């Protein structure tokens, strides 16, 4: 389970890097693995403990200064971006399909109720009419 503190710590490093989200992901890949490995070793670590152990987010970001954007990074960043877009599209599609299914089920059950209600109302009307 990825700890929220670790995620925030990694996000803060990313905030200090001036590049696209995909490139940030590629740059911080190995370090992120190390952080999650550390978390698995020592259990939940506080933000301050991570700073003491690994350094302040801005210092870590600074150590990546001058990292050339090679074709390899660009293609990995692009792959990450495309994967993320597909994941978001799938999530949206899933939500839409679920919403549609719920609507159809409700609609179907709603019609029955309306039909019953109509029948019962007309029955009462008939009865009233009959009594009259």
């Amino acid at each position, binding site marked *: 389970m990825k700890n929220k503190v670790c995620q925030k710590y990694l996000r803060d490093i990313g905030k200090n890097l001036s590049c696209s989200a995909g490139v940030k992901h590629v740059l911080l890949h190995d*370090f992120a693995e190390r952080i999650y490995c550390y978390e698995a070793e020592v259990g939940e670590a506080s933000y301050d403990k991570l700073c003491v152990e690994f350094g302040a987010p801005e210092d870590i970001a600074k*150590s990546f200064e001058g990292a050339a954007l090679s074709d390899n990074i660009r293609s990995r960043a692009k792959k990450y971006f495309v994967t993320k877009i597909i994941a978001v599209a799938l999530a949206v599609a899933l939500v839409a399909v679920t919403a549609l299914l719920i609507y159809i089920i409700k609609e179907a059950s709603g019609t029955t109720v309306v039909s019953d209600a109509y029948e019962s109302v007309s029955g009462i009307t008939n009865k009233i009419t009959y009594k009259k």
Partner: protein
Amino acid sequence: MKYENEIRENVRMGYVELLILKMLTKEDMYGYQIRQELDKRTGGAFQVKEGSLYGPLYRMSERKLIVAHKELVGEKRFRNYYSINESGREYLEFALREMETVFAGIDMLLKWEGSADEK
């Protein structure tokens, strides 16, 4: 001193890549191990945070001076080991020669006590 941290950081980080390469000629190492060895082998002169090593490691990987490979540690955790390759060794050899020349020059200048118009 006002610039204490800045000077410490700049002076040290300039050499970190070379020192990492030198250590990797002895054995493959992972991030935490590099940090520990750097501290130990330099007599405590290079006490860098582990996080600051990933930038240099990344840059050297991109320049194909070192190669990273994963090794299973424990049941399902992986550790990234870094190893130097042939171009890394060539790079190190050339850089160390350059460093010797530069240090000799710096040393000469720092020991110089003559006047400015000395020929």
